[in-house]
């Protein structure tokens, strides 16, 4: 939690002490799309589906 003092807020203006640098956009491309649709995990029960999914996530080395 922060509390601001009742002071005059300074006006910021661009400095001139160093030479300016700037950004120029050189390309704008679509983000690479992920190949393929989601692999839907299907099983008889939620527990079975969860177990299959966990095995896949372990194989992916993300858990």
């Amino acid at each position, binding site marked *: *939690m922060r509390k*601001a003092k009742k002071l005059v807020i300074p006006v910021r203006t661009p400095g001139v002490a160093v030479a300016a640098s700037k*950004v120029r956009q050189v390309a704008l491309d679509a983000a*690479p799309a*992920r190949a393929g649709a989601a692999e839907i*995990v299907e099983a008889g029960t*939620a*527990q079975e589906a*969860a177990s299959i*999914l966990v095995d896949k996530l372990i194989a992916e080395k993300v858990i």
Partner: protein
Amino acid sequence: MNVWVWVEVSGGAIAAASRAALGAARRLAGEPGVVTALVFGHNLEDIPEKLSRYGVDRVMVSDDATLAAYRLEPYAALLVELVRGAGARVVLGGATACGNDLLGSAAFDLDAAFLPDVTGWESAGGRITARRPVYAGKLISAEMVEGGATAFITLRPRAFAAPEPGAPRPVPVTFVAPVIAEDDILTQEEAFELEAGRAGLSDARVVVSGGRGVGGPGGFEPIRALAEALGGAVGASRLAVDAGWIPYEHQVGQTGKVVSPDLYIACGISGAVQHQAGMRTSKVIVAINKDPDAPIFKIAHYGIVGDLFEVVPALAAACRAKVGRQSS
């Protein structure tokens, strides 16, 4: 190339986003280049030794009570003063709330280039072309820094790999004084509370998020249990936050946090483009939703069509059994 890295320190530890920035700085600087770590705060005695493990060539420390907590005025004034005095080609930081705040402000004060939330870059002949997601992540903008002045760049957390710490080595440390006295700082911090024991969203390796489908505040309990089973963080869609089911700091998306974990599990989230903007760069995305036509399945790697209140507890149990973590 002379590259500086503004290092965030919390509780005596170097933030994950800063460790990644140090690794990126080393690669950008190249072998003849110099990587300088800037660290501002208070009681930083052991930080230079920790920084030496990440390949820095020198460290600049400003250790003062006025810098104990992040505040824009003293931090930006000090950074601007240092850049003016001994300009770097590039100043890097993590694209965290503080990193974007500080480096963006310093860039403005110096009339210099600012590239926020960068996810990749090329450098040739001292010229940097950076890539960053724009328009809710649907487009990638390639932007080149022109001019000879310092460029300020923040790196999206987890977009750049953090190096493993090496052995400590002696590095020159320069101590610098703050440039604003306490009485001249507008903002005073009265209290600061850190949620203990939970991974921060931006740095989390695993994020489990809930949306409209959780149905209410109590619906986040299985989400939290799964996140704890995986040692991850809890996220939420804007709808869940707007409904008051979970605080804003958990919001993922265009108007919340941008995350890029190894694993993102979306539970009861339809996957609006605004939500996707905050998580689509996750390494593996899992969607759990009753609606097989939910847009989230179009960007997910794995999906389960079903009731999250059945699937999520089952998933937590399977994780505990197979991965070995215990829910607290």
